[in-house]
Protein backbone atom coordinates (compact mmCIF):
# COMPACT_ATOMS: atom_id res chain seq x y z
CA UNK A 1 0.00 0.00 0.00
CA UNK A 2 1.24 3.48 -0.70
CA UNK A 3 1.36 4.78 2.85
CA UNK A 4 0.89 8.41 1.99
CA UNK A 5 -2.47 7.75 0.37
CA UNK A 6 -3.94 5.93 3.36
CA UNK A 7 -6.37 7.83 5.48
CA UNK A 8 -5.14 5.97 8.54
CA UNK A 9 -1.62 6.91 7.57
CA UNK A 10 -2.67 10.51 7.03
CA UNK A 11 -4.20 10.78 10.49
CA UNK A 12 -1.28 8.93 12.03
CA UNK A 13 1.15 11.38 10.42
CA UNK A 14 -1.08 14.29 11.38
CA UNK A 15 -1.05 13.06 14.99
CA UNK A 16 2.75 12.93 15.00
CA UNK A 17 2.93 16.46 13.62
CA UNK A 18 0.52 17.76 16.27
CA UNK A 19 2.47 16.02 19.05
CA UNK A 20 5.71 17.42 17.74
CA UNK A 21 4.28 20.95 17.63
CA UNK A 22 2.80 20.58 21.12
CA UNK A 23 6.15 19.41 22.53
CA UNK A 24 7.94 22.36 20.91
CA UNK A 25 5.46 24.88 22.31
CA UNK A 26 5.27 23.38 25.82
CA UNK A 27 8.41 21.33 26.45
CA UNK A 28 7.64 20.87 30.18
CA UNK A 29 4.09 19.66 29.68
CA UNK A 30 3.45 16.09 30.77
CA UNK A 31 2.60 13.86 27.85
CA UNK A 32 -0.83 12.33 27.98
CA UNK A 33 -0.84 8.64 28.84
CA UNK A 34 -1.16 6.51 25.71
CA UNK A 35 -4.68 5.50 24.89
CA UNK A 36 -5.35 1.80 25.36
CA UNK A 37 -5.45 -0.13 22.12
CA UNK A 38 -8.95 -0.74 20.78
CA UNK A 39 -10.27 -4.13 21.85
CA UNK A 40 -11.51 -6.74 19.44
CA UNK A 41 -8.43 -7.27 17.31
CA UNK A 42 -7.62 -3.59 16.95
CA UNK A 43 -11.08 -2.71 15.66
CA UNK A 44 -12.98 0.18 17.21
CA UNK A 45 -16.53 -0.22 18.50
CA UNK A 46 -17.77 1.66 15.44
CA UNK A 47 -15.90 -0.70 13.12
CA UNK A 48 -17.21 -3.77 14.92
CA UNK A 49 -20.75 -2.46 14.50
CA UNK A 50 -20.31 -1.46 10.84
CA UNK A 51 -18.68 -4.70 9.74
CA UNK A 52 -20.43 -7.08 12.18
CA UNK A 53 -22.12 -9.20 9.53
CA UNK A 54 -18.83 -10.02 7.81
CA UNK A 55 -16.74 -10.20 11.01
CA UNK A 56 -19.06 -12.90 12.31
CA UNK A 57 -18.33 -15.16 9.34
CA UNK A 58 -16.09 -18.13 10.16
CA UNK A 59 -13.96 -17.29 7.12
CA UNK A 60 -13.60 -13.62 8.04
CA UNK A 61 -12.39 -11.92 11.23
CA UNK A 62 -10.14 -9.18 12.53
CA UNK A 63 -7.17 -10.25 10.38
CA UNK A 64 -9.18 -10.17 7.15
CA UNK A 65 -10.72 -6.84 8.12
CA UNK A 66 -7.28 -5.39 8.82
CA UNK A 67 -5.95 -6.67 5.49
CA UNK A 68 -8.84 -5.05 3.67
CA UNK A 69 -8.52 -1.76 5.56
CA UNK A 70 -4.83 -1.53 4.62
CA UNK A 71 -5.47 -2.11 0.91
CA UNK A 72 -5.31 0.28 -2.01
CA UNK A 73 -7.60 -0.70 -4.88
CA UNK A 74 -8.03 0.91 -8.29
CA UNK A 75 -11.31 0.40 -10.15
CA UNK A 76 -10.95 1.04 -13.87
CA UNK A 77 -14.26 2.36 -15.14
CA UNK A 78 -17.22 3.77 -13.23
CA UNK A 79 -20.03 2.02 -15.07
CA UNK A 80 -22.15 -1.08 -14.72
CA UNK A 81 -19.51 -3.48 -13.40
CA UNK A 82 -17.90 -0.84 -11.22
CA UNK A 83 -21.12 -0.11 -9.36
CA UNK A 84 -21.23 -3.38 -7.40
CA UNK A 85 -17.43 -3.63 -7.30
CA UNK A 86 -16.92 -0.21 -5.73
CA UNK A 87 -20.01 -0.40 -3.53
CA UNK A 88 -19.07 -3.76 -2.03
CA UNK A 89 -15.42 -2.89 -1.53
CA UNK A 90 -16.17 0.47 0.06
CA UNK A 91 -19.00 -1.01 2.11
CA UNK A 92 -16.70 -3.77 3.34
CA UNK A 93 -14.07 -1.27 4.47
CA UNK A 94 -11.27 -1.23 1.91
CA UNK A 95 -8.63 1.33 2.86
CA UNK A 96 -8.51 3.44 -0.27
CA UNK A 97 -10.41 3.13 -3.51
CA UNK A 98 -9.48 5.00 -6.66
CA UNK A 99 -12.08 5.03 -9.41
CA UNK A 100 -11.36 6.31 -12.89
CA UNK A 101 -13.52 7.01 -15.90
CA UNK A 102 -13.20 9.70 -18.58
CA UNK A 103 -16.92 9.96 -19.37
CA UNK A 104 -19.90 11.83 -17.99
CA UNK A 105 -23.19 10.28 -16.93
CA UNK A 106 -25.65 9.79 -19.79
CA UNK A 107 -29.30 8.84 -19.54
CA UNK A 108 -28.64 5.52 -21.33
CA UNK A 109 -26.30 4.53 -18.45
CA UNK A 110 -28.90 4.67 -15.71
CA UNK A 111 -30.64 1.32 -16.24
CA UNK A 112 -27.53 -0.58 -15.20
CA UNK A 113 -24.99 1.81 -13.66
CA UNK A 114 -26.49 1.96 -10.21
CA UNK A 115 -24.11 4.50 -8.68
CA UNK A 116 -25.49 7.21 -10.99
CA UNK A 117 -28.90 8.84 -10.63
CA UNK A 118 -30.96 11.06 -12.95
CA UNK A 119 -29.78 14.32 -11.33
CA UNK A 120 -26.20 13.23 -12.14
CA UNK A 121 -26.66 13.56 -15.92
CA UNK A 122 -23.66 15.42 -17.33
CA UNK A 123 -21.57 14.90 -14.17
CA UNK A 124 -18.24 13.07 -14.59
CA UNK A 125 -18.90 9.43 -13.76
CA UNK A 126 -15.91 9.15 -11.46
CA UNK A 127 -17.13 12.14 -9.41
CA UNK A 128 -20.72 10.88 -9.37
CA UNK A 129 -19.63 7.45 -8.17
CA UNK A 130 -17.25 8.88 -5.57
CA UNK A 131 -19.97 11.05 -4.07
CA UNK A 132 -22.21 8.01 -3.44
CA UNK A 133 -19.36 5.89 -2.17
CA UNK A 134 -18.36 8.53 0.39
CA UNK A 135 -21.90 8.52 1.73
CA UNK A 136 -21.81 4.74 1.89
CA UNK A 137 -18.68 4.62 4.05
CA UNK A 138 -17.00 7.86 5.16
CA UNK A 139 -14.09 5.89 6.66
CA UNK A 140 -12.83 4.91 3.20
CA UNK A 141 -10.70 7.27 1.13
CA UNK A 142 -12.32 7.49 -2.31
CA UNK A 143 -10.36 9.16 -5.08
CA UNK A 144 -12.03 9.89 -8.44
CA UNK A 145 -10.00 10.39 -11.60
CA UNK A 146 -11.62 11.70 -14.78
CA UNK A 147 -9.13 10.10 -17.09
CA UNK A 148 -9.01 7.32 -19.68
CA UNK A 149 -6.57 4.53 -18.91
CA UNK A 150 -4.38 3.96 -21.94
CA UNK A 151 -1.08 2.28 -22.66
CA UNK A 152 0.94 5.44 -21.99
CA UNK A 153 -0.57 6.25 -18.57
CA UNK A 154 -1.45 2.77 -17.32
CA UNK A 155 1.80 2.18 -15.44
CA UNK A 156 1.52 5.45 -13.51
CA UNK A 157 -2.11 4.82 -12.60
CA UNK A 158 -1.50 1.27 -11.46
CA UNK A 159 1.69 1.91 -9.48
CA UNK A 160 1.31 1.18 -5.77
CA UNK A 161 -2.05 -0.58 -6.01
CA UNK A 162 -2.65 -3.80 -4.12
CA UNK A 163 -5.34 -4.92 -6.55
CA UNK A 164 -6.74 -3.47 -9.77
CA UNK A 165 -10.31 -4.30 -10.73
CA UNK A 166 -10.90 -3.80 -14.44
CA UNK A 167 -14.48 -2.71 -15.06
CA UNK A 168 -13.79 -1.19 -18.47
CA UNK A 169 -15.86 -1.93 -21.53
CA UNK A 170 -13.24 -2.18 -24.25
CA UNK A 171 -10.72 -4.81 -25.22
CA UNK A 172 -8.04 -2.18 -25.78
CA UNK A 173 -8.33 -1.02 -22.17
CA UNK A 174 -8.40 -4.60 -20.87
CA UNK A 175 -5.17 -5.46 -22.65
CA UNK A 176 -3.55 -2.21 -21.49
CA UNK A 177 -4.58 -2.91 -17.88
CA UNK A 178 -3.37 -6.50 -18.11
CA UNK A 179 0.01 -5.50 -19.54
CA UNK A 180 0.55 -2.80 -16.92
CA UNK A 181 -0.51 -5.05 -14.03
CA UNK A 182 1.80 -7.81 -15.27
CA UNK A 183 4.73 -5.38 -15.60
CA UNK A 184 4.15 -4.04 -12.09
CA UNK A 185 3.14 -7.46 -10.67
CA UNK A 186 -0.11 -5.99 -9.38
CA UNK A 187 -2.94 -8.46 -8.88
CA UNK A 188 -5.87 -7.96 -11.20
CA UNK A 189 -9.51 -8.97 -11.51
CA UNK A 190 -10.74 -8.91 -15.10
CA UNK A 191 -14.36 -9.17 -16.20
CA UNK A 192 -16.67 -8.46 -19.09
CA UNK A 193 -20.41 -8.56 -19.65
CA UNK A 194 -22.61 -8.40 -22.73
CA UNK A 195 -26.25 -9.25 -23.11
CA UNK A 196 -26.87 -11.99 -20.56
CA UNK A 197 -23.35 -13.36 -20.55
CA UNK A 198 -20.13 -12.51 -18.83
CA UNK A 199 -16.79 -13.70 -17.57
CA UNK A 200 -14.61 -13.14 -14.49
CA UNK A 201 -10.94 -13.95 -13.98
CA UNK A 202 -8.40 -13.28 -11.22
CA UNK A 203 -4.74 -12.85 -12.10
CA UNK A 204 -1.59 -13.03 -9.99
CA UNK A 205 1.06 -11.85 -12.45
CA UNK A 206 4.01 -14.18 -12.74
CA UNK A 207 2.18 -16.93 -10.87
CA UNK A 208 -1.07 -17.56 -12.73
CA UNK A 209 -2.37 -17.18 -16.26
CA UNK A 210 -2.97 -13.56 -17.24
CA UNK A 211 -5.78 -12.17 -19.38
CA UNK A 212 -3.66 -12.36 -22.53
CA UNK A 213 -2.68 -15.97 -21.73
CA UNK A 214 -6.39 -16.84 -21.74
CA UNK A 215 -7.34 -14.50 -24.60
CA UNK A 216 -4.24 -13.92 -26.78
CA UNK A 217 -6.07 -11.56 -29.15
CA UNK A 218 -9.23 -9.51 -29.03
CA UNK A 219 -12.13 -10.97 -31.00
CA UNK A 220 -12.66 -9.45 -34.42
CA UNK A 221 -15.81 -7.33 -34.73
CA UNK A 222 -16.82 -7.87 -31.11
CA UNK A 223 -20.07 -6.00 -30.47
CA UNK A 224 -20.20 -3.33 -27.77
CA UNK A 225 -22.84 -2.87 -25.08
CA UNK A 226 -24.22 -0.03 -27.18
CA UNK A 227 -24.67 -2.38 -30.14
CA UNK A 228 -25.62 -5.65 -28.47
CA UNK A 229 -27.17 -4.39 -25.25
CA UNK A 230 -26.83 -5.58 -21.69
CA UNK A 231 -29.29 -6.21 -18.89
CA UNK A 232 -28.56 -4.45 -15.63
CA UNK A 233 -28.80 -7.53 -13.40
CA UNK A 234 -26.34 -9.40 -15.62
CA UNK A 235 -23.77 -6.67 -15.01
CA UNK A 236 -24.72 -6.76 -11.34
CA UNK A 237 -24.00 -10.48 -11.07
CA UNK A 238 -20.68 -10.27 -12.89
CA UNK A 239 -19.61 -7.15 -10.97
CA UNK A 240 -20.53 -8.82 -7.68
CA UNK A 241 -18.36 -11.80 -8.59
CA UNK A 242 -15.56 -9.38 -9.41
CA UNK A 243 -15.90 -7.68 -6.01
CA UNK A 244 -15.75 -11.04 -4.28
CA UNK A 245 -12.62 -12.00 -6.20
CA UNK A 246 -10.96 -8.74 -5.17
CA UNK A 247 -11.82 -9.42 -1.54
CA UNK A 248 -10.38 -12.94 -1.83
CA UNK A 249 -7.14 -11.62 -3.31
CA UNK A 250 -6.81 -8.95 -0.62
CA UNK A 251 -7.61 -11.10 2.40
CA UNK A 252 -6.92 -14.70 1.39
CA UNK A 253 -10.19 -15.85 2.97
CA UNK A 254 -10.83 -18.18 0.00
CA UNK A 255 -8.90 -19.20 -3.12
CA UNK A 256 -9.27 -16.72 -5.96
CA UNK A 257 -10.49 -17.80 -9.37
CA UNK A 258 -7.09 -18.04 -11.05
CA UNK A 259 -5.60 -20.02 -13.95
CA UNK A 260 -8.83 -19.77 -15.87
CA UNK A 261 -12.04 -17.85 -15.91
CA UNK A 262 -15.64 -18.26 -14.89
CA UNK A 263 -17.99 -18.09 -17.84
CA UNK A 264 -21.44 -16.92 -16.79
CA UNK A 265 -24.54 -17.53 -18.90
CA UNK A 266 -27.43 -15.87 -17.12
CA UNK A 267 -29.97 -16.94 -19.74
CA UNK A 268 -29.57 -20.53 -18.58
CA UNK A 269 -28.22 -19.66 -15.11
CA UNK A 270 -25.09 -21.59 -16.08
CA UNK A 271 -21.69 -21.10 -14.51
CA UNK A 272 -18.77 -22.81 -16.25
CA UNK A 273 -15.19 -22.72 -15.02
CA UNK A 274 -12.76 -22.74 -17.96
CA UNK A 275 -9.12 -23.62 -17.35
CA UNK A 276 -6.29 -21.53 -18.78
CA UNK A 277 -2.54 -21.95 -18.37
CA UNK A 278 0.34 -19.51 -18.41
CA UNK A 279 1.92 -19.21 -21.87
CA UNK A 280 5.69 -19.01 -22.16
CA UNK A 281 5.28 -16.81 -25.24
CA UNK A 282 2.81 -14.42 -23.61
CA UNK A 283 4.03 -10.90 -24.38
CA UNK A 284 2.60 -9.60 -21.09
CA UNK A 285 3.67 -12.19 -18.52
CA UNK A 286 5.87 -14.72 -20.34
CA UNK A 287 9.09 -13.14 -19.06
CA UNK A 288 7.99 -12.81 -15.42
Amino acid at each position, binding site marked *: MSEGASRRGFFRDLGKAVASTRDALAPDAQPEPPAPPPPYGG*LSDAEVERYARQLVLPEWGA*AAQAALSEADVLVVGAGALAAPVASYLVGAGVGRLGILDPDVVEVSNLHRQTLHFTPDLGVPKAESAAAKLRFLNPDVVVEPYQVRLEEDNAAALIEGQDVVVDCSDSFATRYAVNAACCAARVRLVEAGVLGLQGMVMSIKPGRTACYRCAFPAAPVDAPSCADAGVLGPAAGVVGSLQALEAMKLLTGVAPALTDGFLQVDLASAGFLRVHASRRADCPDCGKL
Partner: protein
Amino acid sequence: MTWVRTKLALEALRPGDVLDVRCRPGEALENVPRSAREAGHAVSVEGTTIRIVRA
Protein backbone atom coordinates in the same frame (compact mmCIF):
# COMPACT_ATOMS: atom_id res chain seq x y z
CA MET B 1 -23.40 -8.15 18.58
CA THR B 2 -22.22 -10.00 21.70
CA TRP B 3 -21.18 -13.02 19.66
CA VAL B 4 -19.26 -10.83 17.19
CA ARG B 5 -17.30 -9.27 20.04
CA THR B 6 -16.78 -12.67 21.64
CA LYS B 7 -15.54 -14.15 18.34
CA LEU B 8 -13.05 -11.30 17.87
CA ALA B 9 -11.80 -11.71 21.46
CA LEU B 10 -11.36 -15.46 20.87
CA GLU B 11 -9.37 -14.79 17.68
CA ALA B 12 -6.78 -12.98 19.81
CA LEU B 13 -6.34 -15.98 22.15
CA ARG B 14 -4.31 -19.16 21.78
CA PRO B 15 -5.85 -22.63 21.69
CA GLY B 16 -6.65 -23.71 25.23
CA ASP B 17 -6.99 -20.17 26.56
CA VAL B 18 -10.15 -19.41 28.51
CA LEU B 19 -12.50 -16.52 27.92
CA ASP B 20 -15.24 -15.65 30.41
CA VAL B 21 -18.13 -13.69 28.94
CA ARG B 22 -20.60 -12.12 31.32
CA CYS B 23 -24.01 -11.52 29.77
CA ARG B 24 -27.21 -10.03 30.99
CA PRO B 25 -30.05 -12.55 30.94
CA GLY B 26 -31.57 -12.56 27.47
CA GLU B 27 -30.91 -13.51 23.89
CA ALA B 28 -27.10 -13.29 24.04
CA LEU B 29 -26.98 -15.78 26.89
CA GLU B 30 -28.56 -18.30 24.52
CA ASN B 31 -26.88 -17.26 21.27
CA VAL B 32 -23.28 -16.94 22.41
CA PRO B 33 -22.91 -20.48 23.80
CA ARG B 34 -24.60 -21.94 20.72
CA SER B 35 -22.43 -19.99 18.29
CA ALA B 36 -19.27 -20.77 20.28
CA ARG B 37 -20.06 -24.50 20.22
CA GLU B 38 -20.79 -24.34 16.48
CA ALA B 39 -17.37 -22.74 16.00
CA GLY B 40 -15.80 -25.72 17.75
CA HIS B 41 -15.01 -24.23 21.16
CA ALA B 42 -15.73 -25.94 24.49
CA VAL B 43 -18.42 -24.05 26.39
CA SER B 44 -19.91 -24.10 29.86
CA VAL B 45 -22.47 -21.74 31.31
CA GLU B 46 -22.89 -20.86 34.95
CA GLY B 47 -25.56 -18.31 35.72
CA THR B 48 -24.84 -15.35 33.46
CA THR B 49 -21.18 -16.26 32.87
CA ILE B 50 -20.21 -18.15 29.72
CA ARG B 51 -16.84 -19.86 29.93
CA ILE B 52 -15.29 -20.62 26.54
CA VAL B 53 -12.14 -22.65 26.04
CA ARG B 54 -10.66 -21.64 22.69
CA ALA B 55 -10.36 -24.51 20.23
